[in-house]
């Protein structure tokens, strides 16, 4: 019998019951929540006269609707404010292990917070009514996004009705070049397999280049697994994981810690494990990536040229390229490096952690943003990240360059608050989605790494951060 994959192990240790057709009831350890996808779930619970089964599994905070400036003025938009206040009231009524209300010193993006305080741990099942829950797979946790009906189901029963996914190994061997980040790896993988390439799979990332990534880099990578269609991304825990978690507030302590570390060491795919699909990439050839279209798979190296639909024989695909070029306001064959940006956004659960900010600041230090760039927003992922960055003086580097240093939150990743692109504006963004209208109606998004975003802010257009300055 073949060995087990990491996914198999995580799955099997959480199955409560399996039906003959493969439908399973899966136990959920950690339930993350934010204000957008939870109100209807709590309402359902209330209507059914139920309580939360295990409120101590809940870690919650508002992030999508919260403003990133003028916190003293509160939330101006009354509809946004009501949604945030509804979460306050629901948590008050149903309980939670951790809740950071708006303006709390530790508030931030929910996917930054869980790992930060040690409520995300290896071996857990983690869900959230948010597709980027895949982020937490970086710790070797089985983590994925769910819909609001499922949020209600988890609240009521602490379980999820679901089926086992197929398993895919994305193996990135070799060594990443200088200034090549987890974001570039993620985009290169999506460019290779497409946004539906991972549909139906849980993707485990392995290989020397992945082991070489920091925990934060692994979070960026797993964050983007959903953009490849996979609900879950996974990296096996190792000594870096242990090191990262040690001493975090909710990480186990004392003998529990010893036991946990011993258990985590078993959380890896067996050498003879069989995957349903294997994709291999050579880290050494990955260049800085920039998306040109309206889907994360429409991505190229910074040295590439925007595609020409005339060269695409598949009519369906050609139509897709034409639509994307039209929306993005780009002519076929334009060199990526000639694309000028109006705004730059450094933030989101893909890239708003301390290492991301350090990397961006390193590019920016002693330089100024291009005059043609209207706005550069730097939005830390949490209050903890913000304080750390300020302690290191990163905020001053950004402000001196003409960037704006903001309060934590989702911000212009999806523009539910006041941070957004105006119609036709073009943005270099470290977020994870370049869909039409994502950063504001009519806005045009190019996804890049923090280094590449910072470099675009300085140059006014995309440049290869390795050689530009």
């Amino acid at each position: 019998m073949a060995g087990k994959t990491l996914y198999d192990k995580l799955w099997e240790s959480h199955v409560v019951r399996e039906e003959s057709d493969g439908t399973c009831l899966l136990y959920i350890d950690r339930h993350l929540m934010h204000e957008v996808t939870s109100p209807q779930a709590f309402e359902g619970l209330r209507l059914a006269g139920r309580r939360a089964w295990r409120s101590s599994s809940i870690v919650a905070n508002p992030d999508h609707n919260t403003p990133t400036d003028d916190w003293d003025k509160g939330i101006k938009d009354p509809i946004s404010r009501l949604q945030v206040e509804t979460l306050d009231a629901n948590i008050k009524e149903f309980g939670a292990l951790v809740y950071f209300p708006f303006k709390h010193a530790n508030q931030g993006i929910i996917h930054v917070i869980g790992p930060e305080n040690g409520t995300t741990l290896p071996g857990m099942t983690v869900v959230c009514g948010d597709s980027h829950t895949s982020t937490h797979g970086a710790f070797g946790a089985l983590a994925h996004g769910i819909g609001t009906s499922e949020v209600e189901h988890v609240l009521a029963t602490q379980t999820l009705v679901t089926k086992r996914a197929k398993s895919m190994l994305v193996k990135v061997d070799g060594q990443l070049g200088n200034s090549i980040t987890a974001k570039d790896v993620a985009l290169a993988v999506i460019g290779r397999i497409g946004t539906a390439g991972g549909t139906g799979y849980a993707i485990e990332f392995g290989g020397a280049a992945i082991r070489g990534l920091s925990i934060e880099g692994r979070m960026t990578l797993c964050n983007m697994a959903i953009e490849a269609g996979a609900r879950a991304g996974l990296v096996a825990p190792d000594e870096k994981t242990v090191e990262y978690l040690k001493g975090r507030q909710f990480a186990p302590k004392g003998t529990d810690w010893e036991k946990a570390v011993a258990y985590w060491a078993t959380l890896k795919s067996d050498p003879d494990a069989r995957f349903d699909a294997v994709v291999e990439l050579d880290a050494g050839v990955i260049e800085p990536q920039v998306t040109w279209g309206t889907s994360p798979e429409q991505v190229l190296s910074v040295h590439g040229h925007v595609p020409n639909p005339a060269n695409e024989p598949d009519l369906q695909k050609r139509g897709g390229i034409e639509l994307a070029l039209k929306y993005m306001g780009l002519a076929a064959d334009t060199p990526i490096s000639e694309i000028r940006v109006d705004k730059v956004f450094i933030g989101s659960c893909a890239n708003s952690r301390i290492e991301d900010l350090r990397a961006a600041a390193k590019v920016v230090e002693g330089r100024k943003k291009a005059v043609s760039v209207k706005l550069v927003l730097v939005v830390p992922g949490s209050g903890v990240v913000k304080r750390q960055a300020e302690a290191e003086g990163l905020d001053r580097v950004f402000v001196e360059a003409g960037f704006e240093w903001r309060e934590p939150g989702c911000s212009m990743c999806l523009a539910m608050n006041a941070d957004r692109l105006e119609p036709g504006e073009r943005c270099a963004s470290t977020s994870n989605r370049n869909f039409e209208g994502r950063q504001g109606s009519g806005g045009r998004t190019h996804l890049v790494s923090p280094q590449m975003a910072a470099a675009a802010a300085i140059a006014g257009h995309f440049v290869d951060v390795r050689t530009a300055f």
Partner: protein
Amino acid sequence: MKAFRYLNGLVCPLDRANVDTDAIIPKQFLKSIKRSGFGPFLFDEWRYADHGEPDMDCTQRPLRQDFVLNLPRYKGAQVLLARDNFGCGSSREHAPWAIEDYGFQVVIAPSFADIFFGNCYKNGILPIVLPGATVDKLFAECVATEGYRLSVDLESQTVVAPSGSPSLSTFRCIASTAC
């Protein structure tokens, strides 16, 4: 939620791949704390020429005449014919809520994104996966024939095209998707 065993419905063809949930229901409408009333904002940016905000009266808004949902011949459609990877992106259940509230009961595509697919079943929408070549044929027939309707028989799990047409297809209901 309207239950059905058999549906004979007008088909509306949405001919683009990778339709994401941001396009199905843009973020500003996610501020609602209710689960109804999203239908008028379905595909908001493609459907209307102005910028939509929650609580707007959509009956007064300027329509984009070239968007398929706005063509008179597709008024009252109950079956949405779509392309690959429909419903990708955000896990927002507001997407199926909007599709259902608009009046669609069935979405047919060669493939769906996982979370969206699962969300459909929780909201009385039947997502049907048919082979790419079959979907191509349905698109061609639908565009060529005004008033094109498909029959969906849930018990036999078949999609039947108008009589004389060969595109009869079986599908499988999968009650819950892989995680």
